[in-house]
C-alpha cells in the first residue's frame, strides 16, 4: 500500500517587508508627534460635537477650574513681550534670565507679585505648588492686564489679533466662567472659542 505523504508547509512567513513598513511609519509618527507639556491646572473638558481644531499661532488659553483662572499664551516671543509689558505696568524688573525662563512656561496662575518666585522654581517644584490663580477681582484685575498686554504684544510682533480660548472644567460653576467672559467683554472681545473634547453625534 502506498503511503500518502502530506508535505508539511512551514508556518513562518517572511516578515522583513512588513517590518520595514512598520518601522517607517513608526518613525514618521514619532517625528510628527508633539510632546505634550504637563498642565499647570488639570481640567476635564466637556465634550461636544464640533470638529474645528484650535489654531496653532496667536492664541491665548485661559484655563478655568476650581474657581481659579490660569493664563497662557502660545509663542515664546509673545510671552517675552507680554512679560516686559506687564513689568512696565506693575513696575517690576525681570532679568533676562527670568524672561528666558518665563518664555518656557505654558500656563501659570500666580499673582504678578509672586511671579518672580514662581519663575525661579524648577519644573518639578512648579508642579507641586498649589497656584492660587490670577486675581480677577475688580480692585486688582490682573487678568485684564495680562489679556490686554498679550493682545498688544501679538499685534506688535505678528500684526494679528490674539484669539482667546476658554478651557474650563466640566464641573466648574458658571459664575467663574461669567467672570472671565465679562473680563473679555470689557475689552470688546466678543468672539472666542471654547475648548472641548470630541463626542459622537447622538
Amino acid at each position, binding site marked *: 500500500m502506498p503511503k500518502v505523504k502530506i508535505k508539511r508547509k512551514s508556518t*513562518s512567513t*517572511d*516578515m*522583513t517587508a*512588513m*517590518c520595514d513598513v*512598520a*518601522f517607517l*511609519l*513608526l518613525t514618521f*509618527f*514619532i517625528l*510628527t*508627534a*508633539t510632546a*505634550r507639556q504637563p498642565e499647570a491646572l488639570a481640567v476635564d*473638558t*466637556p465634550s*461636544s*460635537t*464640533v*470638529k*474645528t*481644531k*484650535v*489654531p496653532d499661532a496667536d492664541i491665548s488659553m485661559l484655563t*478655568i477650574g476650581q474657581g481659579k483662572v490660569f493664563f497662557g499664551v502660545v509663542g515664546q516671543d509673545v510671552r517675552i513681550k507680554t512679560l516686559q509689558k506687564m513689568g512696565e505696568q506693575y513696575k517690576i524688573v525681570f532679568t533676562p534670565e527670568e524672561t528666558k525662563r518665563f518664555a518656557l512656561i505654558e500656563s501659570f496662575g500666580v499673582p504678578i507679585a509672586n511671579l518672580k518666585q514662581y519663575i525661579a522654581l524648577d519644573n518639578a517644584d512648579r508642579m507641586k505648588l498649589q497656584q492660587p490663580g490670577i486675581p480677577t477681582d475688580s480692585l486688582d484685575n490682573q487678568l485684564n492686564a495680562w489679556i490686554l498686554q498679550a493682545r498688544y504684544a501679538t499685534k506688535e510682533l505678528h500684526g494679528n489679533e490674539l484669539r482667546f*480660548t476658554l*478651557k*474650563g*472644567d*466640566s*464641573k*466648574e*460653576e*458658571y*459664575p467663574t*466662567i*461669567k467672570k472671565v*467672559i*465679562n473680563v*473679555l*467683554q470689557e475689552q*470688546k472681545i*466678543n*468672539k*472666542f*472659542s*471654547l*475648548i*472641548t*473634547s*470630541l463626542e459622537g*453625534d*447622538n
Partner: protein
Amino acid sequence: MAELDTSGGGGKGKKTRSKKMSTKVDLTAMVDLAFLLITFFMLTTTLAKPQAMDMFMPDKPKDEEKQLDVKASRTMTVLLASDNKIVWYMGVAGDNPPTVDNYGKSGIRGAFIDNNKKVIAGTGDPKKGLMVIIKPTDKSNYKNFVDILDEVKIAGVPSYGIVNKIENAEINLLKDQGVYK
C-alpha cells in the same frame, strides 16, 4: 573551525561540515512591537489637538436704544438650572407655561427643532427662524453651557444669544419648578 568551502565536492574521507545557519530571523515579535507603537503614536497625534467651539457674545451696547428688537413670538428663552435641568419658555415669561427639560437628543433638541419649524411657519420666511436666548444661572456649570451651545448647533437654530443678566422673576420661576438649588 569555520570553513568557507561547503561544496563538499571531491572530499574523501572525513568531511568537515560547517553547519549552515539560516539567515532568517523571526521578526514576528519585532513587527508586533512596531505596530503597537504605531497605533499609539497615531492615536496620540490625532487626538492631541483639542476641538474648539467658536462662540459669539452679543456686543454690550452702552445705550438701550441700540439693542436689537426681536419679536417676542420668535424668541425662546432657555434657563440653565441646577441638576442638569433646563427650563424653557416661548416669548415673554408668564405668557407661555415653562417646560422643564433635559439635555441631549431626547430632551431639548426636539424642542428646538419643533419650535424652529413653528416659528418659520408663522413668519413664512426661512431666514426669520427661532431666536434662542440662553441664560445660564449661577447654579449651572460649564458643561451645561457647552452642551446647550452644542444642542443649538446640532438643531440648526439660526440665531442665539447669551444673556448673563437674570431677572428675579426668572429665578422665582426656577424655584417654583424646584430646579434652583
